[in-house]
């Protein structure tokens, strides 16, 4: 991401086919075309990785240069005239693609990449259609579990080396390499993958060679719609998109955001969709009765809390707008504190992951300060220590929990309150049995709003489909008290 920020200012003019381009000095020639909306077939080029120049798909001719060359391996220069629409280049791309497909198995119908596959896409444009195969295909190992929930199908690989460059340059863990030679060459793993960013390999693989164990065979990609949002997994706040449809949410992928996450996201962040469409999501208020949760009328809750002393513990994962509306609705309530998730893992892993798992701690602190409330952990501990049977304690549960021991010990301390109500995005799990009532609140994907990340940058949460009762946020439950 730093490279993106450090782009030099001087602009260079060049011509691509008949289009005039103006790009900053030092821009990659292929990147210049792609950034300007020109579609150029390519596999190995990725703006976030070092240049490899191995797939030979982005061939161009330049006036005054005798032979075609790959555009990804060149840098823009003033006044150059580049073409990729001539007969020579079209033939070259067609023949290159034919080589890529020489040993490729024709298993698109059962391949999880179908629908977002570079081979399928470019074959429609550059394919030869009639098979010219005489020799037998070289068969390689399929369905190899290479660790970190990544599955490798060596037959489908076109050896673009994006994955090997990723583990060499980005994670620096060096697990992947290309072994053997010629058409026997294949991707191989040293023991197994061991990094926290392995799912990015699935994203950057242009074909179906690397697929995600978590996602494969769950949905055809053309039945999914993407909702752009922000990851709530930690304080980094990566820009992400969540793929979902009417039957559920299925995966999380990063969006390019040069200020925050660049091109990548961590594997923990990939799991933030899991609770969105669980079958046990609340459809309304619930009461814990005869050791199970049953639907309950709001009036019953209203009756129970009437004579009680109301206290609130908020989570540090709500949106700025929710804090705002909460403090507006509950301005008469004095006892409001904040439960912060404990730090987990290394302070910063050098790439994206951070120990502070509170995705909107800064937003929460700001809102507490504005309302004159104390957001510190001491204040929360003090509240827990002074709970009495006269108290009705409302706890806004965190959406994602990493440290389950800390969470359990937090839940064990609230039992002194006479009446306990959880506001949760989750389903009815056994750990909620200490609560008398459950109230549903929207998940991060069921509300519009903003959160503030560790850099004090504001990022947006967008509303997608809903899989449970999500029409009332925390502040909207205020009517119970009137």
């Amino acid at each position, binding site marked *: 991401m730093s490279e993106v920020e450090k782009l030099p200012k001087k602009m260079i003019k060049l011509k691509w086919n008949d289009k005039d381009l103006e790009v900053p000095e030092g821009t990659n020639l292929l990147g210049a075309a792609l950034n300007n909306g020109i579609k150029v077939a390519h596999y190995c080029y990725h703006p976030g990785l070092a240049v490899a120049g191995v797939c030979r798909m982005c061939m161009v001719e330049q006036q005054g240069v005798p032979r075609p060359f790959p555009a990804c391996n060149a840098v823009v220069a003033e006044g150059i005239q580049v073409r990729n629409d001539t007969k020579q280049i079209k033939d070259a791309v067609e023949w290159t693609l034919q080589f890529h497909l020489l040993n490729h198995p024709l298993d698109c119908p059962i391949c999880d990449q179908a629908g977002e596959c570079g081979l399928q896409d470019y074959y429609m444009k550059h394919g030869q259609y009639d098979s010219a195969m005489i020799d037998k295909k070289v068969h390689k190992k399929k369905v190899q579990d290479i660790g970190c929930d990544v599955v490798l199908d060596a037959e489908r690989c076109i050896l673009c080396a994006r994955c090997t460059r990723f583990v060499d340059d980005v994670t620096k863990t*060096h*697990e992947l*390499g*290309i*072994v*053997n030679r010629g058409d026997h060459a294949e991707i*191989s*793993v*040293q023991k197994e993958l061991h990094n926290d960013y392995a799912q990015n390999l699935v994203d950057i693989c242009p074909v179906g060679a690397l697929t995600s164990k978590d996602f494969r065979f769950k949905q055809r990609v053309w039945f999914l719609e993407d909702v752009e949002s922000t990851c709530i997994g930690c304080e980094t706040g990566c820009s992400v998109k969540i793929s979902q449809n009417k039957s559920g949410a299925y995966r999380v992928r990063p969006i390019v955001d040069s200020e925050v996450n660049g091109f990548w996201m961590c594997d923990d962040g990939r799991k933030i969709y899991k609770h969105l469409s669980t079958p046990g999501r609340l459809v309304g208020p619930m009461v814990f009765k005869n050791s199970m949760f049953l639907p309950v009328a709001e009036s019953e809750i209203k009756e129970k809390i009437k004579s009680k002393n109301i206290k609130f513990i908020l989570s540090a994962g709500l949106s700025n707008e929710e804090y705002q509306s909460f403090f507006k609705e509950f301005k008469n309530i004095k006892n409001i504190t904040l439960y912060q998730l404990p730090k987990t893992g290394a302070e910063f892993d050098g790439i994206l992951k951070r120990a502070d798992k509170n995705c909107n701690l800064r937003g929460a602190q700001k809102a507490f300060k504005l309302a004159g409330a104390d957001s510190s952990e001491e204040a929360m501990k003090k509240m827990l220590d002074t709970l009495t049977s006269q108290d009705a304690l409302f706890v806004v549960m965190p959406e994602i929990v990493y440290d389950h021991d800390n969470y359990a010990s937090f839940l064990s301390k609230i039992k002194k309150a006479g009446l306990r109500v959880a506001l949760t995005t989750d389903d009815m799990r056994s750990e909620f049995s200490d609560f008398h009532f459950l109230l549903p609140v929207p998940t991060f994907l069921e509300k519009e709003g903003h959160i503030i990340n560790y850099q004090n940058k504001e990022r947006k949460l967008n509303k997608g489909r809903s899989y449970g009762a999500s029409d009332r946020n925390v502040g909207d439950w205020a009517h119970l008290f009137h």
Partner: protein
Amino acid sequence: MKKFEFNTANKKKYQELLTHYDDIQSALMPVLHLAQEQHSWLSPEVVAHISELMGIPEIKINEVISFYDMFYDHPTARNVVQVCTNITCSMFGGREIHKGILDHFQLHNMRPSQDGKLYIQKMECLGACEMAPCMRINNIYEGHLTLKTAVQKLEVLP
């Protein structure tokens, strides 16, 4: 896992090899040859040791080993025999010699004999067409072969 280490003489040779190149990666191929000379094949323990020694990830070393036919990632034997079957040698009966040797000693291509004496490998061009058909026994060229002379040369090996 049995640990591999260069013996005293080879440790010296290793240090000397490093002085031939500007960077340590460039010395990888001669270092692998040196290790193979000592250990007869490049076992995972050898790769692990060289990786630690030279600071090169194991997968990068395996890439090199798997690329070249003369680096072995599986056990060989006391005598490594490479029989050329490329165009010139084939025209003079190279393929028949290769097959004939395997049949005579009842071996499979690229699998060591049970007594650990012979390891036969079918090769592409050995670069010695003038003495076709030819083979290499432990890096020494033998040319103008017939099946009979080839078998004789192998039978007297230690």
